[in-house]
């Protein structure tokens, strides 16, 4: 299976889980449908394109390398002169997510890779105003599932975040990150159904079905404490007897 990883980061991101007009909430990590929407935009599929549905078959996993802090954006909409409506939209601030998508169809993965470098429509992280920061970092992995890649790939948090983590956990030679993946990749884990399967992005008829999701944690080396021997913190008085 060929896998691509994307490093999703920007000051603001938002991954809607239940859209209502006045209050639009965000999940804590990128939804598969958001990433499918991004890939569809890159490939130049318009909202009503049937080819979007096939992208549900991509194998998907995401790792939270730097969790986002929630922000509620307050926005007024002026209906007509003097009549305003108040709305709230939630965002995740300052987050870094590693998304991995894979498929046995290698030609398609190559096409997606090229499309993400030359997107037909602008890419965004959940909301149009959330433009990815810098050039989107994409990496290719041959013969590995998205989950396997994310279990190995080094911690991708920002420098300041890694420094702060190390300052707050001076003994931590490792860091533990949450991963969320297609349940098929984690057959022995408890699965939950989430409303995150794209049925239609068409504005006329926007629909999502359910998809099974499972979670796992991965422990990776803390690159800032590489080569530092962990100081023994276990105190065992019986050992001297």
């Amino acid at each position, binding site marked *: 299976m060929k896998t691509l990883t994307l490093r999703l980061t920007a000051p603001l991101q938002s991954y809607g889980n239940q859209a209502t007009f006045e209050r639009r909430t965000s999940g804590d990590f990128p939804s598969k449908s958001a990433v499918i929407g991004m890939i569809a935009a890159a490939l130049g599929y318009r909202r009503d394109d049937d080819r979007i549905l096939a992208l549900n078959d991509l194998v998907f996993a995401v790792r939270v390398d730097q969790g986002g802090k929630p922000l509620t954006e307050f926005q007024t909409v002026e209906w007509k002169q003097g009549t305003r409506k108040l709305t709230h939209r939630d965002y995740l601030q300052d987050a870094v997510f590693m998304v991995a998508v894979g498929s046995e169809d290698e030609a398609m993965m190559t096409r997606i890779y090229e499309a993400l470098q030359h*997107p037909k429509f602008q890419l965004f992280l959940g909301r*149009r105003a959330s433009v990815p*920061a810098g050039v989107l970092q994409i990496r290719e992995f041959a013969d590995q599932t998205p989950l396997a890649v994310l279990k190995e790939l080094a911690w991708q948090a920002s420098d300041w975040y890694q420094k702060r983590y190390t300052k707050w956990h001076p003994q931590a030679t490792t860091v533990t990150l949450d991963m969320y993946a297609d349940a098929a990749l984690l057959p022995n884990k408890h699965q939950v159904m989430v409303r995150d399967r794209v049925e239609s992005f068409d504005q006329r008829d926007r629909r999502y079905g359910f998809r099974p999701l499972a979670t796992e944690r991965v422990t990776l080396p803390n690159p800032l404490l590489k080569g530092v021997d962990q100081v023994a913190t276990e105190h065992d008085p019986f050992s001297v007897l």
Partner: protein
Amino acid sequence: MTAKNLYLDINVLQTVPSSNLNRDDTGAPKTALYGGVTRARVSSQSWKRAVRSTFREDNVNVGTRTKEAAQLLVNELKQQDTTLEDDVAWAKTDAAFKAAGVKLNKEHETGALLLISRGQLEKLAQYLLANDDLDKKEIKKVLKGDQSLDLALFGRMVADNPELNVDAAAQVAHAISTHEVVPEYDYFTALDDLQGEDETGAAMLGSIEYNSSTLYRYANVNVNELVHNLNAEDAVHGVADFIKDFLLSMPTGKQNTFANKTLPSYVLITLRPDTPVNLVSAFEKPVDSRDGYVAASIDRLEAEYQTTQQFVDTPRLNVVLGKADSQIGEVATNLADLLSKVTGSLTEAIQDEDTNA
């Protein structure tokens, strides 16, 4: 592969003194966390509205966002045919909205805001006066054609009839400060001028939160989409109008309190054949300075531009305004020069596209 991409990136550094341009539900200036510190923030929707208002002042072909589109159509009908009775005009208007699939309530208002352009109203009125039997397809064609610039750039959503939706060609990011900001509070009292000699104390007191910042502002335009929404010639003019009004506009929040209207200090415009690039990553590590933020921010932005060039194709054009000795692109002498360089390169790019097609 199909036609090549054509994206225009607009990067702006603009310093704003004590101000409260865009406030949240508590009246405090909006902020965001980035690189682990608090930044001043001006939301994209707020700055887009400022751009739309400036379009209107500049007489750029701009649409109206209203629930009273039916009233506008009636006015237009009566202007085109001065003998038309009120009830006939209303009957025609109601029929037109019904054919378009947009519901009107008892007050003849649409359920949600509808963005409609001058050209669309004119064409629709002409069509209604010429035809008694309405063809749904024709009406929809009129409502999708003759798009105003802001409709083509910022998109339109019609909840009742999504066929009339237009996907936006521009992307505007929230503006954030290149450095950490600390909120400041202005404590104020107001005295009663006619207060008696024997009375003391203020008649009112309060506080206003504000901050000052050097903002990084970013927007891009998918030129191919803008051509798709308008046409090649209007798209080139439209991009120039957008650049100009994006640079010169500012949200008016607390403008009278702070008189904070500034102009950009530095502008970098890039025309790219592959992908838009938001250079906000230059400021993930906040700029730290005891000597002002503008010069340091410009250096950071130019360095980031250089770094990102390793990963993307060579741009068709890169123009800088505000740094005479810039090494990263052509230097424009003033705004007019900048706009003419951009329109020249855009026209050339679109022509290349046509001959390739």
